Structures are given as C-alpha cells and as structure tokens.
C-alpha cells in the first residue's frame, strides 16, 4: 500500500491540528494534579491517544503515513520546548503559574475550588510533610508540576 503525496500532506496537517488541539484542550479542560495521577486519569490519557489515532493517520496503516505523522508530532514538540525556553512569559501563560493553597494557616478556599482540589488531597500532602493542621502552615503552594510546597509556621507559633 503506497500513500499518495496528497494523503501524506493531509496526514501531516491532520497530525499538527490534533496535537495543537490536545495541548489546548488539556490546558482548558484538563487540570494539574495534586499528588499522583490516578488510574482514571491514566486510562483517559491512553484512550485519548487512541481516540485521535484515525483523525491523525486517516485510518491508514501505511508506513509512510505513520512516519510522517510521528515526525510532525516530534518536531512540533521540539519547537514548543524551544519556544518556552526563549519566552518564559509564554510558558507561564500556557503551563500555568503556581497557586496559593494555604496562606498564614488558612486554606484559600477560592483557589481550591478553582483548581478542583479536595480538602482530603491537601490534608494528605500536609501529612506527607509531617503536619496535621493547616494552622501549622505559613504557606502552601501548588506548583506547576502538581506538587505541593509547604512552608511550616516558625517553631514558636506551632500549636
């Protein structure tokens, strides 16, 4: 089976569109995780990959189509990382910025709601830092990579 040049060009454009769409979609609808990605998220991501397969390759099993589609994805991925390296402001805009979760012993409920983080998840992250109450925390920040940085209250203020 030999794919024609028009098909190969179409596959290249399709692959680029799908990749850009997924990046945008994950940014808009997806979220950063607090702690570990759970099994439902993993299944969703793998299913996502399969859901767009035909949209990228036009259902073609030809080697040429596969190679072109893969090359487009790899080259675009490389371009994005170069772009973010040169323009940190774009990186902040598209990858998100750190978010305040606890300030001076108080949970910032508004940010918890916006990021869809449950109190259970915050309490687990605190325990993993050896703390049990938000009141022991001066500052907790949800980082871009999904981890929670915790700055405890100064020792004398601990309850």
């Amino acid at each position, binding site marked *: 089976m030999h794919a024609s040049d028009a098909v190969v060009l179409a596959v290249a454009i399709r692959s680029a569109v799908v990749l850009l769409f997924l990046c945008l979609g994950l940014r808009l609808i997806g979220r950063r995780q607090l702690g570990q990605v759970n*099994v439902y998220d993993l*299944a969703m991501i793998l*299913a996502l990959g*399969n*859901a767009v397969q035909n949209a990228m390759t036009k259902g073609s099993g030809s080697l040429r189509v596969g190679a072109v589609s893969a090359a487009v994805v790899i080259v675009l991925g490389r371009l994005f990382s170069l772009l973010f390296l040169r323009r940190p402001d774009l990186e902040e805009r598209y990858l998100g910025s750190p978010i305040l979760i606890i300030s001076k012993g108080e949970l910032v409920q508004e940010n918890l709601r916006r990021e869809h983080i449950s109190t*259970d998840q915050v309490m687990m992250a605190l325990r993993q830092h*050896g703390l049990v109450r938000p009141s022991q925390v001066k500052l907790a920040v949800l980082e871009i990579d999904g981890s929670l940085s915790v700055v405890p209250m100064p020792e004398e203020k601990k309850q």
Partner: protein
Amino acid sequence: MLSRALADVFSHPDLLGALVVSGKTAVVYLFLVVGLRVLGKRELGQMNLYDLVLIVVLANSVQNAMVGSDTTLLGGIVSATTLLVMNRLLVVLMSRSRIVERHLVGEPVLILRNGQLLRDRLKREGVTPDQVMAALREHELARVDQVAIAVLEVDGTISVVPKEATIHRTHRRFRQLRMG
C-alpha cells in the same frame, strides 16, 4: 495536491455521526472508570508492570468502540473533547463530593496514634508492623512512642507525623495490591 490535502483535512462526519462518536466515547469512558474501580487498583503507585500493560491494552481495545470507522479529523476531535469533558466532570464531582472521592480513590487510614499501633486497622489494610517500623526509620525515628500519628495514604505511602523533630517524606509504598 494541496487542495486535495486541504479537502481531506476539512472532511467531517455529519451531525448524527458526530453525536454517535461522542455518545460512544462517553459510554466507553464510564465503562473504563467502573471497570477500573471494580479491578480495585486505584493509584498508579500500586501498579506493577502487568497492570500497566493491562491498561494500555484496554485503551487499544476500546478504540474502534469510540470512533469506529470514522477517519475524519473532526471525528477524532469530537471523541477527544468528549473524553476531556468527562474526565473534568469526574474531577469536579470528586472535589465536590467527599463520598464519591472516597469511593473512587479510597480514604486515608490512621494506623498509629500517640505512640500506639492500631493493630486491627493494620490487619484490615494488610500492612505489617515491620512495614510501619520501616516507614518510621525512613523518617529517622526508631520507636513508635516518638510518633504522634501515622497514616496509610490513598497513594499507598505511610505519612509519619513525629511528636517532635524534622520531617522526611516516605517514598516506599506499603499498601498491598488488592483485588476487588
């Protein structure tokens, strides 16, 4: 050549076709969530290589069920959007409802309080006292009486809150693999 390629890129299913793809994708997503819940492996940390293979194969096995013979660009985008929206709904539901969250990802279990091991809970969770001691040593504690609380977390790690002293995070996982 370019015009033929562009015509292909803008190919799309009709409205009914798009609705069918979206509906089938939603059903597949719900099925995967329920299926994985029944399987009982909730956190990636608990998974071994075979579980991972199972999930990858699972995702492949549902591909045709989601998009079927639709090879248009828009068909794939409709399916992907459906998956993203469903995942988002699940996340929102879990952050709003503690019951749903605890049912889907489990709940943390207190296993040590005020220097006392809670042996009945350890037994129920399949964690041995030796494993708890290993977690304490990772936190540079040698005796249970140095510990205020220890909690078996939903990701399988043990959190240790000492009565006093500095904190280190546990990296080893102690919760056993369990089916069902």
